[in-house]
């Protein structure tokens, strides 16, 4: 039984995450945790058989629109991976490989890209895939009426498109963007039928039309999306296991928000695959013969607590360091995640090759924390044992999104609350629903927060730590929750985003990470958890190495 990658065990995380722009790091790409382990199939010897219905149970919120161009969050990516395809993909080593585009070229100044499309591909509504179709997709993403968020930002530097021929499309950029290919590989930039895009947004949201191995058949809100096999499928990515149509006849995509119910459903055989598996169930699955674990940490940022350096008390680096030193994260991760998550000491996901890890900066050292606080003027203690300075209590307001933090993570925060209390921090956890949580962030009513960010490549650092990210959008949204405002860091990140030279880029990102970690802006916890549990009947399922969404093209049922 070749068990799939338990290589890195990880935390999981739950629902929707806003995705930021992908940046492109030309050639460099990330290896996924699935390395060498693309299949979750327990019986490698069997021959795939066609047919059958696979039931997938998602713990994420049900998308409000199945077209990932609209908005663009992870739940959309999960399901659209089954019916939409991108121009390029990544292989398990992180190398960009052809998908709907056979090949591509870039001009020396990095401002003009030409993609040659694969021959003979048609959308499932019969529309042929051609240059005009790609143009229509880019136009759709850039049209404000679409309401695209993730895809829109990914294409921020694209200023024009042109059909060089039926099969060659040219993109013109305002500035060089070495992350372009990675951006295009993301499911949020999946290519849809231009004919279908002509329809009203409602229709398109209900059943987007792509070139993928499955087709959206029906969507009963709050119940299930039914996907059926695309029998005319011709365009698997270069790293697929087979050609032609998928094995599965049908996928029923369900939403079971309650984690206990979801796992019970898998145990009872009512569903075949669940996502957002909880640590205790992963541990149980490890001892079970009937359930297989698939671990696919997401790329981009690690899961971390961001400390708001924009206001007191964390505008003082010493207090930030004291907080980090006073938090016993290691024990908490060990007990809560039961081996399914590994502690991170980096701003980036462990799947990012350019990540820098500095364990020594995040040691649990309450004594050092106490000294730091004493020196910083927080030397008094009040009746409850909390430190004060000038009569003000050392309070850390920590809003927790119940949508974004799984129970184990919420418990982790409680343990941090408890250990930090010993040093004299009054950590005030507030569980909030997503809207309230964003409102709290938007009104700067937080001292610490944990917000996940998924994105391919180290360019995520620019989004999270460049001072541009402090200014909120009209919606109140901003990505730089640590409110890092460091001109030198800004320069490093801008430069890294535009350089064409891989070594230089690596050095620049390394420097940038040093500044971030040594500035104690963040307390890294672990990778963004992305665990799937599969019934043993499911064979050949794997996660795409782009943003770790599962694909069932190669999957088949061994019942």
């Amino acid at each position, binding site marked *: 039984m070749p068990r799939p990658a338990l290589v890195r065990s990880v935390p999981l995380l739950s629902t929707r995450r806003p995705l930021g722009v992908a940046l492109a790091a030309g050639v460099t790409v990330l290896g996924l945790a699935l390395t060498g382990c693309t299949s979750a199939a327990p019986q490698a010897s069997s021959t795939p058989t066609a047919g059958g219905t696979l039931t997938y149970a998602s713990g994420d919120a049900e998308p409000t629109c199945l077209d990932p161009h609209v908005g663009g969050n992870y739940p959309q990516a999960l399901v659209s991976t089954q019916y939409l395809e991108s121009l390029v993909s990544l292989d398990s080593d992180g190398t960009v490989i052809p998908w709907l585009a056979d090949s591509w070229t870039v001009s020396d100044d990095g401002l003009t890209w030409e993609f040659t499309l694969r021959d003979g591909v048609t959308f499932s509504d019969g529309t042929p895939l051609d240059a005009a179709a790609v143009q229509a997709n880019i136009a759709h993403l850039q049209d404000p009426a679409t309401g695209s968020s993730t895809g829109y930002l990914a294409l921020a530097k694209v200023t024009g498109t042109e059909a060089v021929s039926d099969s060659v499309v040219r993109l013109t950029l305002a500035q060089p963007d070495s992350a372009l290919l990675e951006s295009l590989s993301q499911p949020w930039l999946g290519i849809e039928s231009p004919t279908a895009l002509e329809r009203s947004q409602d229709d398109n949201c209900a059943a987007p039309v792509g070139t993928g191995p499955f087709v959206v058949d029906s969507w009963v809100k709050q119940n299930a999306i039914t996907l059926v096999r695309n029998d005319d499928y011709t365009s698997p990515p270069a790293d697929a296991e087979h050609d032609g149509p998928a094995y599965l006849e049908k996928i029923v995509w369900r939403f079971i928000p309650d984690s206990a119910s979801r796992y019970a459903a898998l145990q009872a055989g009512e569903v075949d695959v669940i996502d957002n598996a909880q640590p205790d169930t992963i541990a149980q699955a490890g001892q079970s013969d009937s359930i297989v674990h698939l671990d696919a940490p997401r790329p981009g940022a690690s899961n971390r607590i961001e400390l708001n350096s924009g206001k007191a008390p964390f505008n003082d680096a010493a207090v930030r360091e004291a907080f980090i030193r006073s938090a016993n994260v290691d024990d908490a991760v060990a007990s809560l995640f039961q081996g399914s998550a590994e502690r991170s000491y980096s701003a980036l996901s462990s799947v990012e090759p350019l990540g820098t890890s500095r364990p020594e900066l995040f040691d649990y050292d309450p004594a050092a924390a106490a000294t730091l606080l004493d020196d910083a003027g927080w030397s008094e203690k009040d009746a409850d044992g909390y430190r004060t300075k000038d009569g003000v209590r050392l309070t850390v307001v920590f809003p927790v999104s119940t949508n974004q933090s799984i129970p184990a993570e919420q418990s982790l925060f409680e343990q941090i609350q408890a250990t930090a209390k010993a040093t004299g921090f009054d950590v005030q956890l507030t569980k909030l629903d997503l*809207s309230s949580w*964003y409102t709290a962030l938007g009104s700067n009513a937080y001292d610490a927060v944990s917000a996940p960010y998924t994105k391919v490549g180290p360019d995520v650092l620019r989004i999270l730590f460049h001072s541009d990210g402090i200014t909120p959008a009209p919606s*109140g949204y901003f990505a730089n929750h640590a409110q890092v405002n460091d001109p030198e860091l800004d320069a490093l990140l801008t430069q890294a985003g535009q350089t064409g030279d891989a070594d230089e880029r690596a050095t620049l990102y390394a420097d940038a990470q040093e500044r971030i970690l040594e500035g104690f802006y963040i307390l890294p916890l672990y990778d963004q958890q992305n665990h799937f549990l599969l019934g043993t009947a499911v064979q050949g399922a794997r996660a795409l190495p782009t943003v770790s969404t599962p694909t069932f093209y190669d999957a088949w049922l061994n019942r």
Partner: protein
Amino acid sequence: MAEPLTDARSTGGQRVRRLGARIGWPLTRRIGGAVFVLWAVATLTFFAVRLIPGDPAQAILGGPGSQTSPEALAAVRAEYGLDQPVIVQYLAQLGRLATGDLGRSYALNMDVGPLVLSQLGGTLLLAVLALTVAWILALGLATWSTGRGRVARRIGSGLEIVAAALPHFWLATTLIVVASVWWGILPPISTADARGLVLPVLTLAIPLAGFLGQVMRESLTTALESPFVLSARARGEGERGVLWRHALRHAALPAIGLSGWAFGSLISGAVVVETVFARPGLGRTLLNAVTVRDVPVVIGVVMVVALAYILMTILSDLASRLADPRPTTSTAGGAQ
């Protein structure tokens, strides 16, 4: 049991007419009252949701996490009339509601009417089944534990009290663990066939049965001590006959009156149960809509629930009147 009516035409007809007179006038008043309640519910909800912090335009554009441009926000505000004064928005909303138009969801890219309709069936089915099962459980326990001595009575009323104290979500999880994980006899989530309904229905029905049972037991005791039961026994009626032909009907009266209220509490329970069992339905829709500030959906669901509640109350009144044709009618209780 044959209807002992001798002249079905005349007496039956008269009875129908008398019944009609008894119900007719209250019914028209009821309809007036219902319209008022619907209006008030819509108004309250409209302003209550408005009090929740958060920008509706933002909700429309994919929630606060999305990165929207000021232009898009302005466009949406204009499109949905959000730039109008609140009172204008309120009147517009009322106007739409009056014509049966529930408006368009901010978050779900669809009209509220079809959405609510598509979710209504599941919840109604759940609620009606749960109500029925609760009745069966309560009646079963009452009949089992009556006339079997003190111990049985104690056990019966003890079970009722415990059942009424069970939190829905805990009961649901326990049922899942026992029936699905340990025994593997029932699916833990909703399925296309009826098996998937068993656990959700039980989850809702058990606590409710506890309530109904408590109410029923009290009136059952009274009924069993009444002279007409003695009369029936004197005619040779056995325990079972006394119970089914006489006492239970009296015992059921207050519980029938409670059914309107019970329905309301089932809807609250449905919020939890639909989440746990991943069932489509109004409860889950409502919870989601509230968390993303989807005002039209919230109002739409609340209106439909209020309407269903009103209908349920009327039905339970009607049932009370049918079960108890005596002219002194008590209004359906909303008692706890």
